[in-house]
């Protein structure tokens, strides 16, 4: 009987998993890809998965990418599900990104500035022509020129502008432990710490589109890239039993300081406002989008009309998380026959009522 066909979920699941494993491996005549190869050669994928998975671990990110067959949202989900099982030891001291070991640092607002412009390993000026030489394996790239590493601190553009009072100053640390979305549910009004955490974990595509929308007039912020820097930063924690900071390792970060339209009032002289982006790994598109959206969400705080999607804090925060979004969108493929059945009965009843009414009208 037909009804039997919808039974047997248990065996179906086992078979599906077996097929998935086979599909993941692909043609066995082709060498299996190593996690080390993914980690070394698919760096931008690793960066994205670490950022959206909220876990700085290149090795685990590589494993997740392999397991997810290169589906980066699925990979970020794997990292998140792992991350949630880890104990939380401490909140770090505020990172000192001026002490970043930069491999790239550019400013779009000053031609030259202390620390200089450092292009680094960027695709910005590559011509997007498919490089067929890459299809042939075993050709080593020419060695890039070396320069001496300096450990000088590179002041941020904001610090430079702040000398003249031209830009909002850093608020400085409140000393309070920042909120953590992964432990406490989102509540409104949401503080900037919560907003920035949500954006840092948020979907790159969603933030890109929202940031882009502000540039097209949906909540414009008149942005300039004050600076964008990419590199390694030391992370420090202050264990209460020690009372002083210890370095627990480095993280790769991309930081974007966006300089935005000025605001002022009778009591505050006109000054540029700021949007901020900070993302794990090398993720310029994400950091810039984050800075645009962060600034857009400050509209109400800065006395601007908040009418565009990017300025609506609740809208942005509830929808930027791609693990939540993909779950709820994709859950539509789970069985809904009970609900659909009740809708069917309701629609049938309404149609019958409509028919009966039509007959009554015709009779009158």
């Amino acid at each position, binding site marked *: 009987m*037909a*009804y039997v066909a*919808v*039974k*047997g*979920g*248990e065996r*179906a*699941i086992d078979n599906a998993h077996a097929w998935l494993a086979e599909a993941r491996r692909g043609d066995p005549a082709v060498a299996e890809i190593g996690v080390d190869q993914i980690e070394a050669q698919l760096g931008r994928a690793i960066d994205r998965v670490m950022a959206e998975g909220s876990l700085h671990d290149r090795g685990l990110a590589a494993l997740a990418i392999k397991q997810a067959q290169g589906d980066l949202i699925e990979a970020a*989900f794997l990292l*998140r*599900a792992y*991350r*949630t*099982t880890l*104990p939380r030891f401490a909140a770090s001291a505020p990172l000192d990104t001026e002490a970043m070991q930069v491999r790239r640092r550019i400013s779009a607002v000053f031609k030259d500035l202390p620390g200089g412009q450092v292009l680094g390993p960027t695709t910005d000026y590559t011509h997007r022509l498919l490089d067929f030489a890459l299809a042939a394996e075993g050709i080593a790239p020419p060695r890039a020129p070396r320069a001496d590493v300096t450990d000088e601190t590179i002041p941020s553009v904001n610090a430079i502008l702040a000398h003249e009072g031209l830009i909002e100053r850093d608020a400085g640390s409140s000393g309070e432990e920042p909120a953590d979305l*992964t*432990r*406490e*549910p*989102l*509540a*409104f*009004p949401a503080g900037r710490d919560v907003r920035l955490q949500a954006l840092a974990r948020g979907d790159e595509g969603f933030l890109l589109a929202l940031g882009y929308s502000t540039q097209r007039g949906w909540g414009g912020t008149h942005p300039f890239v004050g600076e964008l820097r990419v590199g390694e930063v030391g992370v420090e924690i202050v264990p209460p039993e020690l009372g002083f900071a210890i370095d627990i390792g480095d993280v790769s970060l991309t930081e974007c300081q966006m300089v935005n339209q000025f605001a002022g009032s009778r009591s505050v002289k006109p000054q540029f406002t700021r949007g901020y982006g900070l993302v794990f790994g090398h993720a310029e598109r994400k950091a810039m989008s984050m800075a645009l959206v962060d600034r857009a969400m400050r509209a109400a705080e800065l006395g601007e009309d908040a009418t565009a999607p990017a300025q609506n804090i*609740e809208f942005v925060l*509830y929808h930027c998380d791609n*693990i*939540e979004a*993909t*779950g*709820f*969108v*994709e*859950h539509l493929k*789970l*069985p*809904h*026959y*009970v*609900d659909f*059945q*009740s*809708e*069917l*009965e*309701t629609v049938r*009843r*309404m149609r019958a*009522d409509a028919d009966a009414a039509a007959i009554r009208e015709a009779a009158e």
Partner: protein
Amino acid sequence: MNVASGYNFAYLDEQTKRMIRRAILKAVAIPGHQVPFGSREMPLPYGWGTGGIQVTAAVLGRDDVLKVIDQGADDTTNAVSIRRFFARTAGVATTTHTAEATVIQTRHRIPETALRQDQIIVYQVPQPEPLSRLEPSREETRRMHALADYGLMHVKLYEDITRFGHVSISYDYPVMVDGRYLMAPSPIPAFDNPKMDRMAALQLFGAGREKRIYAVPPYTSVRSLDFDDHEFRASRAPHACLLCGATDSYLDEVVIDDQGGRMFVCSDTDHCEGRRDGT
């Protein structure tokens, strides 16, 4: 630690369970009120029942007997998957028999067999906010609940009646709990709503993605929203189950050919099998 899994009993660590239990206690104390909780990322996707799974994990003990249903059935793929998850991480006994279970996790149905005082039913909830389709902002709906300002929902029902002659909501039909809070019963068919009223079992609701837990304590009034002159009416397909002949159970409609052929069978598979076995 447990069953070769390397994870804590029922997957979640004890701290997290304690946080969830606190939310559950608060929810039981304020029937129908949505309590925000620090929902964790689970190894199953949001939308698959992460809220229900967290609630079940927090209430499950070693001696519990767990039943998991989806669309009323124990053998739908997601029910199988969740039951396996707990069999693996908690090693608890599982059953498909409603009467044998101490904890029942469900998606979209309430079993036909009346539940007892020594049972807990855990609902998976996709959208805990009953006002969400009328007012998208949670900041606003929170204020509406605080003021018991449910006029918007009454207007919606009234408009349905003037337009269609009936309320057009057929599942997730809003209920008033203990005369105070408007509550989403989760997407169960409206047919199941009357079972919630003064139910002997504790009813717990978990929404993982939306990070809310709410509850209906045993023997609490749960009234489907209606008007004096337009009373709530539970409806089902007007047929008898082809397998067990039941005329009072909720039915699945199964398409058997491409000529408009249909058959109707109980959605609650355990109920149907029990009737056929004569138990």
